[in-house]
């Protein structure tokens, strides 16, 4: 009798607990779905409106296109001076910058992590100390210098200032510290020279962190807006980010052409999305890795 009552109480209790937990789970999913819907909606607007005609966007900016069209994408390639050139500029600038920045930072990181040399700590401390100084401070002198060199409206003006990343150096050095030096010693005894130690051992072993830094750096350069706005005033050399906000109706000058702008936005986002889809986990890991080192 007593045992039976205890048993019923127990099942009753587990039942309410089960119901409560179930309720919490439903609430949790509801919150997540709302959050995701809100965060995805602007993305939908961007993609959907890129498939509408400019006039349809005016009366139907929020919904599905009634008439799907590729006119806006065609417009990117045709009028507005052929915006694929600007897209290509962005690709060239971000790619060259990333390759060189990773190379420079990883070479220096290798030396700082695995060699002892006079001045090592002083130089490294100096590099770190200036990480707080915002890049924007260098804009006036760099502008003057590049103007004197005749570098305004060139690729190098947009690439060169991004090459020495103290952040990347720090990130990669931390990782290289954790690579056992025994690897290097073995290769060294086998007769590998310094460059081979770097290129054949350190670079492959440190590939995860190099990839993480490459993603963050590419993202930064791809998104950069202020500096290109300063040094690239000619349409043909501007990256896509500078051109996108300026697109106007060729006939009625002041009206933004939303179809073309949205199609351009999709295009400007595409390379990052591709990298994100291919390297999903590493992409998000790079965000974390960039944050871990206090």
């Amino acid at each position, binding site marked *: 009798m007593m045992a039976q009552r205890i048993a019923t109480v127990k099942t009753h209790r587990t039942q309410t607990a089960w119901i409560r937990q179930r309720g919490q789970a439903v609430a949790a999913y509801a919150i997540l779905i709302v959050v995701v819907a809100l965060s995805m909606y602007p993305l939908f607007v961007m993609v959907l409106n890129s498939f509408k005609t400019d006039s349809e966007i005016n009366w139907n900016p929020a919904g599905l296109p009634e008439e799907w069209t590729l006119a806006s994408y065609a417009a990117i390639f045709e009028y507005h001076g052929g915006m694929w050139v600007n897209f290509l500029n962005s690709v060239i600038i971000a790619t060259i910058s990333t390759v060189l920045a990773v190379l420079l930072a990883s070479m220096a990181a290798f030396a700082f992590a695995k060699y002892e040399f006079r001045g090592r700590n002083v130089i490294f401390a100096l590099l770190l100390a200036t990480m707080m*100084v915002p890049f924007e401070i260098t*804009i006036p002198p760099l*502008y003057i210098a590049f103007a004197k060199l005749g570098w305004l409206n060139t690729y190098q003006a947009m690439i060169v200032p991004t090459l020495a990343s103290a952040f990347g150096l720090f990130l990669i050095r931390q990782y290289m510290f954790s690579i056992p030096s025994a690897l290097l010693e073995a290769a060294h005894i086998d007769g590998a020279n310094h460059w081979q130690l770097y290129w054949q051992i350190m670079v492959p072993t440190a590939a995860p962190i190099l990839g993480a830094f490459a993603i963050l750096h590419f993202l930064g350069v791809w998104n950069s807006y202020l500096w290109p706005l300063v040094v690239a005033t000619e349409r043909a050399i501007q990256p896509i980010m500078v051109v996108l906000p300026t697109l106007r109706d060729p006939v009625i000058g002041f009206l933004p052409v939303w179809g073309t702008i949205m199609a351009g936005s999709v295009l400007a986002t595409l390379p990052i999305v591709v990298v994100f889809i291919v390297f*999903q986990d590493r992409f998000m890991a790079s965000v974390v890795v960039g944050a871990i080192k206090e």
Partner: protein
Amino acid sequence: MKAGNVVSLPGQRAVVVRRRIRWGDTLAPYLFIAPFVIAWLTLFLGPALYSLVLSFYRFKGYGTATFVGWSNYSSTVQYHVFWTMLQNTVFYWLAHVIPLLVFAFLLALLVRSDLVKGKRFWKPVIFLPNVIAVVASALVFQSLFGTQYGVINTIFGTEVPWLQDTTLTRYIVVLLLVWRGVGWWFVIFLAGLTSISPEVEEAALVDGASPWQQLLYVTLPLMRNTFLFAFVIDAIGSFRLFTEPNVLVSRGGIAPDAVAPLLNLLLGNLRDARFGQASAVGWLLFVIVVAVTFVQFRVFRETTEEAE
């Protein structure tokens, strides 16, 4: 030390690889750091120092520069637009940082909890707004919040001047910053939370703590460094804000002063070829960033001491 090439591990004695002394061995590390250091000296440290010097001169880009003492700084500080832009920047920072980090943290708690399954699905989906190019996302928000043909006004049948009214516009900028940033910090918080060992948190529950107490006294203190990092990095980024307000508000150019961030003053001076003045704005920005970071470290240290 000079016996050969020295290969070392942190916290361990240097392991000397015995080899004949070669000139190249001492030179090697310098050759490895040379490209980076030269690029850094010529493109960062050099220009930064030159900019400091320039901030005390009047220079129009040609002819001679005249020394003017602190006048670039004093005239900047006396210029009312400087204060408008500083106010805007501080507003953008303070109005977005709390919702941004709280929201990101709560989402991370939620996705980590046992209530939710499919973490491999939620994580990338919540991160996704970050993948959109900054300029593109600002333009999308511009079309969302247009007055006449805007998406939001069309859905609700209203005609709210979101991007014409200065006060409203500032909140739209904040909304954009939160919308874009949540996924980024969510991923970082999630990693921080996942690195907490479950035993520590379970021990609190076993000792009779409520889930709320567990969060307050166990989880949050363990996340302290991550929060400090998030506040500091986000503040630095906030004072360097440029792209979002300018692309969101303007029609293809530069945002009006009433909603512009501090960097617009640097750009404005640059375009008027007032290079000394532009440099002074840059250094004022740096001083503000350092002060804000310093205060944040102090506040964090004090609140932890109180907690302990």
